[in-house]
């Protein structure tokens, strides 16, 4: 492909909250719209949700990644957004998924993931590595 691939990974806090049922509905809505919009423009990625925080990977043509990312950034429902990775990449991490979804575990609460998110929001570089490897791990387990 001649077009440059861009990947951005960010974590968001407080965007989705409420009861279990509410959270599930909101996540379904986000995933459905992401899958619908992303596949149209060649953007793939993954979403990891855990205890009111989520991490999202967006990868694809720079222009479209920028547009999708900007839509997310202008959403006032996010309380805090931390970008943990952004740059040109050679290959996609999730080539098969318009938006893969990784559930963190039963009841959507996993201590390991919580700790990783806490590290990200505290500005620790280890948090980034942890979130990325958790994403890949959880998706591999689900596959």
């Amino acid at each position, binding site marked *: 492909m001649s077009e440059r691939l861009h990947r951005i990974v960010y974590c968001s806090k407080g965007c989705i909250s409420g009861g279990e049922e509410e959270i599930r509905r909101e996540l379904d809505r986000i995933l459905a719209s992401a899958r619908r919009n992303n596949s149209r423009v060649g953007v793939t990625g993954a979403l990891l949700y855990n205890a009111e925080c989520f991490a999202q990977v967006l990868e694809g043509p720079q222009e479209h990644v920028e547009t999708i990312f900007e839509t997310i950034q*202008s959403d006032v429902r996010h309380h805090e957004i931390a970008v943990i990775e*952004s740059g040109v990449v050679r290959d996609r991490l999730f080539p098969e998924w318009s938006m893969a979804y990784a559930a963190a575990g039963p009841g959507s609460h996993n201590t390991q993931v919580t700790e990783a998110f806490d590290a990200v929001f505290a500005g620790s570089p280890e948090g980034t590595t942890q979130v990325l490897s958790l994403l890949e791990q959880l998706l591999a387990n689900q596959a």
Partner: protein
Amino acid sequence: MATANRIENQTEIPALALLAALNQLDQGLILYDAGGKLLHISERAQELLEVGDARPGEGATELEVLLRSAKRAGANWAEALRYLTTKEARQENAGLEGGGLRFRWKEVSDGNRVAFIENVSGEAAESKSEEDFLTGLASRARFEAEIESAMAGGAAVSAMFIDLDHFKAVNDTLGHAAGDMLLKRVGQRLKASIRTGDLAARFGGDEFALLIRANATADDLTGMANRIIEVMRRSFLIEGELTHVGASIGIARMPADGSDARELLRAADLALYESKAAGGGRATFFEKTLLEREQVRRNGEMDVRRALALRQFELHYQPQLDASGKLVCFEALIRWRHPERGLIPPLAFLPIVEKVGMMGQVGEWVLRTACAEAMKWPDDICIAVNVAPSQLGNKQFVERVRQILEATGLPGCRLELEITEESLAGDPAAVKGMLDELRTLGISLAIDDFGTGYASMSQLAMFPFDKIKIDKSLAGADPRERALVKAITQLGDDLGLSTLAEGVESREQMVQLHGDGCDFLQGYHLGRPMTAESAALLVERVKK
């Protein structure tokens, strides 16, 4: 075929005849390519725009340079035209109006565009653009009209002024196209942060405004402002680069803070100024005390102008001695002999001078006066003069220094300029170029207050300094300070730089700093700052 035939015939019309025909049109025409390079400007276009003498460097493209020189193009036109050469603009077919002219453009072929300029001053009595061309938000004109009409309806409206922090840095590092993209996105984020019924506007540059029509409490407004600050603080992804700005906000409410649009906006602007002055990234409500503070600021500026005109500034000179105790140099220090407040030290007024943008003028006065004074001393005594960061920011600085040396007759080798680390922070390449030029005039350069700022050792190697002035905070007896001073003098030795210790206030300190390897010493123990007359007397005394 008939069509082909017609086109073929047309291309045979001599170009000059075609141009003459174009000049008969009531509309002015500008033909330019995708990069903003001018292909043709009709005489009528030049006439309508009142094109003046374009100065090079006034725009990124030829089209921009042309519009900036035009008397009748609105202030935002050059900016607008920059946008016209972007990718998105290609699909649009918009226009802009200002100064009684209307400007529309169309793509003709191969990315080439033709712009039509019409005189509309007769139409619709100075019709003003309702919309900001770049962001699609309301224009200033519409914003003000909306405030007036809301007020006429008796609504208690509020206004916010929003100004981006660090926007200039984005423009400077990523370029104007990225800057425009950022402004567009800021506009989108702003729109997403407000309630329906409120109005977002862009006044130009990175200035945005909000009109809150509904009755909003102070808490509502605080919440809204904080949300906007939060959203603007988030990363922007522009042309693949993660970019960050911030927002500062000023808030004013009707009727308490103003009774018409002009007053309300002025109140919001003053509140914004407070947010900026406090470091940005915050919101401030207008208060009556801000008016007083502005008055003080204005008085400050008037005072500085008056001080220069009435010669209320004066220089004092503090001796610098070498290790053997010989007088080698004086540092010129500015004082303000205020008619009511007495002698004011520099730290109490230089920030005001800087704020009102008069550091260049004051700095030149200091340099000229100090050089002239030094001419009265023997050849082996130098003069050290402080240079403010904003002075180095002026590209004319080296030339001004050269002129002052020439005018006073002082040889460059008797002048030392003291430069703080802060001055090196801006554009290192530009600053280095300037310092190199100053050295070719024979001037020596000292890095001032070393050990206080972000003192990076690499700066010593990167910039062409001759001397390190070690800050007085390191003149104490604390063993850690001693270790630092020794390290700095050692570093100076290795890099071939001399060292001067400031703040020598006792005999003990003198012995100690001398022992630590400092080549030169300065401080109260060796001589306080003194008037020009006292300095002249001291010079006479040591000569004997």
